[in-house]
């Protein structure tokens, strides 16, 4: 009895001593297991690299940063993990989350606890705009995606087809969850503002196994451009079935997810995906002059993980995390209000981050300078083609 109680006291003392020298903790809340694990992990790697870099340069406010992981495998667990990070781990802020629904759930917990929540990768509109005081988002959103795809049509595709934008017929198709629906809604709105002819807007369940009717419908409507917002399975299905029924619109613009990934290109074949456009987060084929630090990031990534980055998610999370840590470094303390005050002051112009876009928080604490990039599959590679200052290759539009 006596011996064990002495040992327990010693252990407790060691724990207290340990925490006294402990560094400042931040939470990394991502889906590390389950369905979204692949890109959740990829996103978190960006934050890990940022932490390493920050610590190598003396940490934040002189303290070393420790990153505590929380696994947001579903919405409920996102809430539970956010509570654990805040109450048990005592993190000063949470960074996350890749998934919009997890972000919306977990950020409410953080808000009630008065802990800043930095969203670096979730795109849904609803993440910001809920009047949360401690939530900030650095990455571009569904609205930016819709805007960018319409800009590409107006600036590049219509001129290449020798058409006025008002003569371009556009078909918008999207998976029918809140992600696809909101991007498609923005595409329709920006498209109408730009005077495009919106021939149809159609949703379909992402778990569909057949899109032949939709392809026939688009064929019948004689559209010039198809915009699809989708996950991987339905991207593959649409590209294959469009190709097989001989449907060749002048341009197909994919939105994120499936369209940016190499396995998608392998699934449909490089000849089929040739020329297909894609709007997504900044990827690694962006012009390094426009995205300074991107190449160093890739090198660090390779050294640390022994493989190439699997998507642009890590880069975008890295950029967001670096800006946030830099701001917190200049804050007066780790108190939530001090952090928020410092973050409000961030003013990074376009072309000075590793993802290209600048950072300044505006209305609803959304980064007003966040931008998606326009890309195109050319000769089996996804190259950045729009906007011109970020492009490494010319957009190729047939006909």
């Amino acid at each position, binding site marked *: 009895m006596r011996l064990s109680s002495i040992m327990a006291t010693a252990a407790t003392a060691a724990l207290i001593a340990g925490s006294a020298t402990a560094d400042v903790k931040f939470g990394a809340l991502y889906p590390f*297991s*389950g*369905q*979204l*694990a*692949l*890109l959740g992990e990829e996103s978190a790697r960006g934050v890990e690299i940022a932490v390493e870099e920050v610590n190598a340069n003396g940490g934040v406010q002189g303290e070393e940063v420790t990153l505590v992981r929380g696994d947001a495998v579903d919405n409920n667990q996102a809430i539970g993990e956010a509570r654990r990070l805040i109450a048990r781990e005592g993190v000063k802020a949470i960074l996350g989350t890749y998934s919009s629904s997890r972000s919306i759930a977990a950020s409410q917990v953080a808000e009630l606890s008065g802990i800043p929540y930095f969203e670096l990768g979730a795109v849904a509109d609803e993440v910001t705009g809920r009047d949360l005081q401690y939530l900030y988002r650095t990455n571009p959103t569904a609205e930016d995606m819709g805007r960018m795809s319409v800009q590409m049509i107006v600036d590049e595709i219509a001129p290449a087809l020798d058409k006025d934008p008002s003569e371009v017929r556009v078909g918008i*198709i999207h998976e*029918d969850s809140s992600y696809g629906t909101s991007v498609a809604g923005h595409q329709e709105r920006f498209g109408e503002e730009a005077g495009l002819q919106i021939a149809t807007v*159609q*949703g*379909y*369940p992402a*778990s*569909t*196994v*057949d*899109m*032949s*009717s*939709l392809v*026939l*419908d688009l064929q*019948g409507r004689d559209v010039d451009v198809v915009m699809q917002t989708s996950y*991987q*399975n339905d991207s*593959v*299905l649409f590209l*294959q079935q469009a190709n*097989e*029924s*001989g449907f060749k619109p002048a341009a197909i613009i994919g939105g994120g997810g499936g369209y940016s*990934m190499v*396995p*998608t290109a*392998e*699934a449909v074949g490089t000849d089929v995906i040739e020329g297909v456009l894609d709007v997504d987060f900044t990827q690694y084929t962006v012009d390094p002059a426009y995205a300074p630090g991107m190449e160093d990031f890739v090198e660090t990534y390779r050294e640390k993980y022994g493989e190439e980055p699997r998507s642009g998610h890590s880069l975008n999370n890295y950029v967001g995390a670096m800006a946030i840590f830099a701001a917190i470094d200049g804050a007066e303390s780790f108190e939530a209000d001090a952090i928020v005050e410092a973050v409000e002051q961030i003013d990074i112009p376009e072309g000075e981050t590793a993802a290209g876009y600048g950072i300044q928080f505006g209305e609803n604490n959304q980064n007003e300078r966040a931008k998606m990039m326009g890309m195109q599959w050319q000769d089996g590679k996804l190259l950045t083609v729009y906007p011109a200052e970020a492009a490494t290759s010319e957009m190729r539009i047939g006909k």
Partner: protein
Amino acid sequence: MQTFLQIIANGLMLGGLFAIVAVGLTLIFGIVKVVNFAHGEFLMVGMYLTYLLTSGLGVHPYATAVAVIPILFVLGAVTQRLLIQPLMHARDEHIQIFATVGLSTALINLALLIFGADIANTPNYGVRSQIQIGSVRILEGQLWIFLAAILLVIGLQLFLARTNTGRAIRATAQNRAAARLMGINDRFIYVLTFGIGAACVGFGSALIAPLYPTSPTIGTYFVLIAFVIVVLGGLGSIPGAFFGALIIGLVDALSGFYIGSDLREAVVFGIFLVILILKPSGLFGTRVSQAHVSP
């Protein structure tokens, strides 16, 4: 007219695809009386096996059926023996359903662990090439699936009608207690039936894998519609599953074009409800015996 024919062809091919998944499910549903929520995951396992064998050994995906069918048979039989059978005498038989839900989740996450969330592409060896019949275009692989579904349905019907084992399976389905009194080993019959049901979807997966990218959740794409088909055709009816699948395939294709892709599920399920209201036992269903409930 040309478009209409193309839609009909697409619908029939889709129906064949649904049929080949649903046949095994209806067998298990009708005879073992277990709602197997892991059926889609059996399909997923089969597709990954096809993928691994095709890309690893460099053989035609259809040839992998030789290995995939027995493996899936064993998977199904083991599921019945080790998971369902111990629960047969549970106070509430719905517990078996929850067990299959658990198995489904476990298999999906196992696949995530082994293969990751990314898609796996089975080399297609030309089965994605097109066949032109008049003005209608279909894929070679779709046609094979359609023909294979017909063969599978006829084969299973013959097996159930003409062989002693088949008769024993039907007897057990009709009245488990009476079948036991006749000297039929009902436990063995259940293990066998579950195995055959899984083997059917194994056969299907070798045909489906070259057409659809495989992912851990691919099964969930098929399983809900497969349940609808099984209920529509009549629980346990194999021809019912086949024709139910064709109806759902056609309705899906036609409503997807004429009504809009966002509403096609609503139409499919609406028609499903209407048929059930008019004919509650399903198109080919007979009154289901509850005799297995009593010991």
